[in-house]
């Protein structure tokens, strides 16, 4: 089985694949201070808790937005899984053509997402990935990664507001009864939920325009922690796919093997 590891700035997502089937998935905090041994024990415990054994894992694919965690996880794979992981980065045959000023500058997570979105939904497409940053990826009709837009993420923005504004409370990120709010908590919920929905719609509409306008049939897919909450408040998001990153890691992993080999 394949263990897919997507390292984000705040959370690491893990998925275990039996061929194309996602059998289980987990999330752990992306802690830069944790050692290979700590990650090894953590990953093994999660697998065992779900009834898998370390020996079931015959491959690991990693994409990381946190460069310092790559060697940590490589060591972990050697020591606990006795294998060399596939780390997505320059030189890996991903099947995604990158149209960017400097292709090496593109984060591996973007390429993984682009691979999955094009394979599952076709092109042209826009992916909205709600994480530490909200990242909008533009994918051409041919599946090329065209670049995108990066905006501050929902959760970190709300946390920053709480920390900087002496009089504002921490809030739960749920939809308020109406946009027009008449107390502080509802005011903040309204500003956050409808404000970010407006941000997404405005940015997606600009990207769709660049990808050929409404006639081009651009697919708009959302993924990430806030996708479920915000998608229904936007008019631009057509589908929510929580496993896009893990799927992309599986797809790119499969592309490394010559045809016919299993």
């Amino acid at each position, binding site marked *: 089985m394949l263990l897919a590891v997507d390292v984000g*700035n*705040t959370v690491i997502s893990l998925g275990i694949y039996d061929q194309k089937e996602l059998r289980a998935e987990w999330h752990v905090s992306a802690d830069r201070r944790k050692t290979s041994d700590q990650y090894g024990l953590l990953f093994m415990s999660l697998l065992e808790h779900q009834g898998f054994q370390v020996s079931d894992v015959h491959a690991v694919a990693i994409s990381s*937005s*946190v*460069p*310092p965690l790559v060697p940590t996880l490589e060591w972990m794979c050697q020591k606990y899984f006795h294998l060399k992981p596939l780390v997505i980065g320059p030189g890996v045959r991903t099947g995604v053509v990158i*149209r*960017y*000023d*400097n292709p090496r*500058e593109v984060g591996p997570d973007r390429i993984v997402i682009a691979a999955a979105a094009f394979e599952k939904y076709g092109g042209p497409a826009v992916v909205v990935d709600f994480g*530490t*940053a*909200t990242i*909008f990826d*533009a994918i051409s009709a041919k599946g090329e990664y065209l*670049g*995108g*837009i*990066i*905006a*501050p*993420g929902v959760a*970190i*923005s*709300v*946390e*920053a*507001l709480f*920390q*900087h*504004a*002496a*009089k*504002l409370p921490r809030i739960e990120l749920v939809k308020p009864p*109406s*946009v*027009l*709010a*008449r*107390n*502080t908590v509802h*005011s*903040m919920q*309204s*500003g*956050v939920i*409808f*404000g*970010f*929905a*407006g*941000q*997404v*719609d*405005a*940015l997606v509409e*600009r*990207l769709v325009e*660049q990808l050929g306008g409404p006639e081009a049939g651009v697919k708009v897919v959302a993924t990430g922690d806030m996708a479920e909450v915000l998608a229904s408040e936007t008019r631009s998001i057509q589908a929510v796919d929580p496993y896009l990153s893990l799927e992309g890691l599986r797809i790119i992993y499969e592309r490394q093997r010559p045809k016919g080999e299993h």
Partner: protein
Amino acid sequence: MLLALDVGNTNVTIGLYLEDELVATWRLASSREETADEWGLQFLQLLKREGFRPQDVTEAAMVSVVPPLNARLVDACRRYLKVPLMELTSTHRSLPKIYYDNVAALGTDRLVNAVAAWERYGRSQGVPVIAVDFGTATKLECVSAAGEYLGGCIAPGIGISTEALARYAARLPRIELAPPRQVIGKNIVASLQAGIIFGFAGQADGLVTRLTQEIAPSGPAPMVVATGGLAHLVAAQSKTIRLVDPHLTLEGVRLMYWKNREPEDTWS
């Protein structure tokens, strides 16, 4: 002359008014460390640099969202300018009617924006107004044509959100907040500029559009006025913001102070 203070979470903005004319403005960091003496000395120095004397200041009023600073500023005005500093609160006279669950809990910074937006852009024109303040938080206030405060919303501000992103995201640089040249960013800086400038314009538009549907589903469209340090940058990309008034909050402090310095029966 009136010294008007807008004490925000990031900056203290100060305006000096000769009647209704704003003759000088200054901006200081909202330092939580500075003492009353340090604030007082800064006031004296700023006034002197612009050719004013301490005794030119005959009145002072403030709106504050940073309670720990209030006593020091009151003290500074009393000892260095010899004037009492009135702290405006949401229970002072402001708009003809306020619709809010608990009026005392409505931020006075929001209320002064609502007062200024209505008095300057709504009252005589007979249209509802929406004020958008791009500060530490982005705050929107809705006022009916008749001057009723209807409610609003609060979203994370541009500066703090952008700063948080640079702090949390390992691969992302700090960038200059400038309008992007392309929509599909072909490098990280361009991608971030598009996300921030187009994104926050979209955030404001999304909120204004939804608020408009609730407050004025039919009838005259609301006048949408923006203020705050980054208002110019965002307004240029916004579809709903009609004008930028950089001193809206100070105007609100002056207008609300004027409503409260006279005895109740002369208030109109």
